[in-house]
């Protein structure tokens, strides 16, 4: 009996399906797609936001945020959102890393560089209604620096540790104390002068969170429900899909934000993201393939937006490995790299050849250094002088993933490989999975390698010392270049108190680097974004994320 019911059900299901399929399987492939045809006019995705409805900005991006408590994060995708929910004590200018007031309206620095007094903006409220004041600033810094603080999390705060020499009680810790002078004045006392102190405070990670919210929720939950003073309030997070923010009507910067709602939408595939923009499902996208830039320019409904460059893609030498320990060999390879050709071919022209390990957009860049031109004869001659008239064999590590500073590591490596062949150097390209790549290059297993860096705060130290100081061997100095002279200058620059003094030191360091060639800086890329043509006042910041309070539709 039961069996009959089953087979009857099966039969009717299949008969029904056959009817649905239009009795003829020949149209199998097209049929389902034809279904919505009748509805076509009604189904067109909204090309423009409704004129009278809320003003929404849908932003397409490649990856989801990791967390939304800025101090717990180190990744760019997280900051793209937190920049809109939180404010920092000081900020950066719209398109540069010059420091401007934000939550602190003005500040005084003692001549010895050990005390900083900040005067805070009055009448600012957190999204949960609590007051922003000197107590809140003190509480946030205490939470970050004091490992025994109840809301300090077990993994620590990576950026705090890096920028301020560890935590409270550590030998090199910079901040001695944060004191409340009056409700709107807060004083920082330092253990030692730190030249980039103010610059650091503007970094996205040092955003001021609502103490009440963090205490009530705890760091884990706060990481998913952020509460700050920023232009937008957090609404909802659908992981790997969307993060929704809404306008903060009480924002201290009167007249802003312009949008009622921001939605950050994850669309991993670059091409699919551009399709979504073209079809009107999103209004703005980042991570445009350099190759698609022309198509965006040619489309009257779209505009191309270029982010000022603050990155570096380079070819590094592990100077501990033979024959790369010989500066002449390194210089020979530097002569054999055709930078303009690489930029034309792989960055679609969206970038400039790099001379120094830091981009010209950062102060202290040494513009007097004249780059080695592409010259295979000169390269060959240097190799002969170094004792390798017939060249040598070498392993050349290429990045497996695309990064803004290196759109296609393997292809770029192949291009360089061709040139090296002409001077007798046989480079064998090696590649592996990204996390392994980072780990192994950190451990110094590589010979010649491709890598890059995106700046965090616009300070020269963040490029020069991070990438090439001997203290960072085993860390981000993957060339393992240990130059005493450069190290001495970099350390001096870290504790120098005036910008002029630091600038002089950095100019010298860059000369030493250029002469000794621990790396061949290849390019400073210009990351490209695309948006609807009617989007205005979007000012991309070189550090990679920015507040969208001023963005509007025409």
């Amino acid at each position, binding site marked *: 009996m039961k069996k009959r019911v089953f087979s009857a059900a099966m039969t009717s299901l*299949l008969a029904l399906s056959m009817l649905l399929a239009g009795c003829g399987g020949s149209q199998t492939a097209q049929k*389902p797609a034809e279904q919505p045809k009748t509805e076509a006019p009604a189904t067109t995705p909204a090309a423009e936001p409704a004129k009278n409805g809320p003003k929404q900005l849908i932003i*397409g991006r490649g990856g989801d945020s990791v967390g939304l408590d800025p101090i717990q994060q180190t990744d760019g995708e997280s900051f793209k959102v937190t920049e809109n929910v939180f404010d920092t004590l000081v900020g950066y200018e719209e398109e540069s890393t010059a420091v401007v007031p934000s939550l602190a309206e003005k500040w005084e620095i003692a001549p010895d560089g050990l005390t900083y007094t900040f005067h805070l903006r009055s009448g600012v409220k957190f999204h949960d209604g609590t007051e922003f004041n000197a107590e809140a600033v003190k509480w946030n810094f205490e939470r970050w620096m004091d490992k025994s603080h109840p809301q300090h999390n077990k993994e620590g705060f990576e950026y705090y*540790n890096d920028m301020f020499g560890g935590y409270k009680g550590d030998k090199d810790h910079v901040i001695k104390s944060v004191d409340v002078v009056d409700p709107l004045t807060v004083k920082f006392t330092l253990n030692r002068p730190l030249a980039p102190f103010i610059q650091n405070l503007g970094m996205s990670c040092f955003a001021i969170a609502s103490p009440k919210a963090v205490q009530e929720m705890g760091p884990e939950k706060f990481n998913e429900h952020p509460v700050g003073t920023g232009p937008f309030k957090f609404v909802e997070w659908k992981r*790997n899909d*969307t993060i929704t923010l809404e306008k903060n009507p009480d924002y201290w910067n009167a007249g802003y934000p312009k949008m009622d709602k921001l939605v950050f939408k994850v669309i991993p595939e670059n091409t699919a993201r551009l399709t979504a923009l073209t079809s009107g499902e999103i209004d703005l996208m980042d991570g445009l393939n350099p190759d698609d830039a022309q198509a965006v320019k040619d489309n009257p409904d779209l505009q191309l937006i270029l982010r000022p460059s603050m990155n570096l893609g380079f070819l590094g030498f592990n100077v501990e490995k033979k024959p790369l320990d010989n500066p002449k060999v390194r210089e020979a390879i530097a002569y054999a790299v055709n930078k303009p050709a690489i930029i034309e071919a792989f960055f679609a022209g969206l970038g400039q050849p790099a001379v120094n390990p830091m981009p010209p957009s950062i102060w202290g860049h040494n513009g007097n250094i004249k780059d080695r031109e592409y010259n295979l004869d000169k390269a060959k001659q240097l190799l002969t002088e170094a004792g390798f008239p017939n060249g040598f064999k070498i392993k050349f590590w290429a990045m497996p993933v695309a990064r803004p500073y290196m759109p296609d590591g393997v292809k770029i490596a192949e291009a360089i490989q061709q040139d090296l062949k002409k001077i007798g150097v046989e480079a064998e390209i090696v590649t592996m999975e990204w996390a392994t790549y980072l780990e192994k290059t950190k451990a110094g297993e590589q010979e010649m390698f491709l890598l890059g860096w995106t700046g965090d705060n616009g300070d020269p130290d963040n490029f020069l010392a991070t990438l090439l100081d001997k203290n960072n061997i*085993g860390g981000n100095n993957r060339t393992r270049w240990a130059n005493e002279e450069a190290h001495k200058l970099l350390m001096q620059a870290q504790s120098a108190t005036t910008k002029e003094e630091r600038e002089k030191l950095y100019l010298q360091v860059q000369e030493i680097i250029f002469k000794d060639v621990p790396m061949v800086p290849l390019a400073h890329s210009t990351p490209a974004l695309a948006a609807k043509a009617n989007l205005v006042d979007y000012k991309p910041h070189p550090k990679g994320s920015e507040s969208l309070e001023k963005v509007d539709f025409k």
Partner: protein
Amino acid sequence: MLSYSIRRILMLIPVLLGMSIVVFSIIRAIPGDPALTILGEKASPKAIEDLREALGLNLPWYIQYFDYLKQIVTGNLGVSLHSGASITQEIGPYLAATTELTIVSMLFAVLIGVNAGILSAWKQNSWFDYCAMLIALIGVSMPIFWLGLMEQWFFAQELKWLPSVGRDNSRNPVEAITQFYILDTILAGQWDQLWEVIKHLILPGIALGTIPMAIIARITRSSMLEVMRADYVRTARAKGLAQFWVVYKHALKNAMIPVLTVIGLQTGLLLGGAVLTETIFGWPGVGRYIYTAIGNRDYPVIQSGILVIATIFVLINLLVDLLYAYIDPRIKYR
């Protein structure tokens, strides 16, 4: 039937246990340090060592395994190293998204695949048969990636009929209750939203369903051909039954056994193997969740994610086996 079912269900225990060991070991074999990947390329060596310690990564592997097993038994899938959130909670929406997509894809694959297969067998060597099998051949060998991008380009960008990415319209998002958006919109009685959700399912559903559709069509065809040569079918025809009923009532039931296997297998495969489709269509599913976790060396997520998928896979197979025994009683005596 009951004893067969019980036996079959009890067999799940060693299977699941074995699976957990395999998953656990494979993950340990992936090169790369989770602490480093969590902290990122800018981390200092000391911070990495501290984190390894905090995460228990310095403990011997068997202690890590038993700790893990203990957690799983209590329904705790662990905490994601990357996001710091509970996996049990986190995986829910992803699983729902993928399941919804898988169901739609399989519906598409089964409806079209089975019928095309039947008609091909029915009209063997006709132009329809040739066309259908050619399409099936193309379908099997079609790269999902390419198909997905072409669909988007044609139906979303050029014709603007269908949305290209996501599960819903971000300008008017679905209020999630159960995380199954079709169900959610029905529960809320929002019919325009339901239509919106269905529209979002069409392109990824076709992209994901094309390969199974082609496989099912081919299997159905060959299975039907075999059955239609059987004596009882000839008898049915001889007694003057209309061809339609011969095919759909008599032949189909027996032909369905191998097809059912394929459907079961394919459903399981889709559930875990939707990474490409989910990537292209920005679908917040479990495939991409695990895939991203692999990149992040997020051990707990990889482990638990694969375990959940594998468990569902095993359960689908169980269901198929039970259905078998139901259709063909001889099976349960073997």
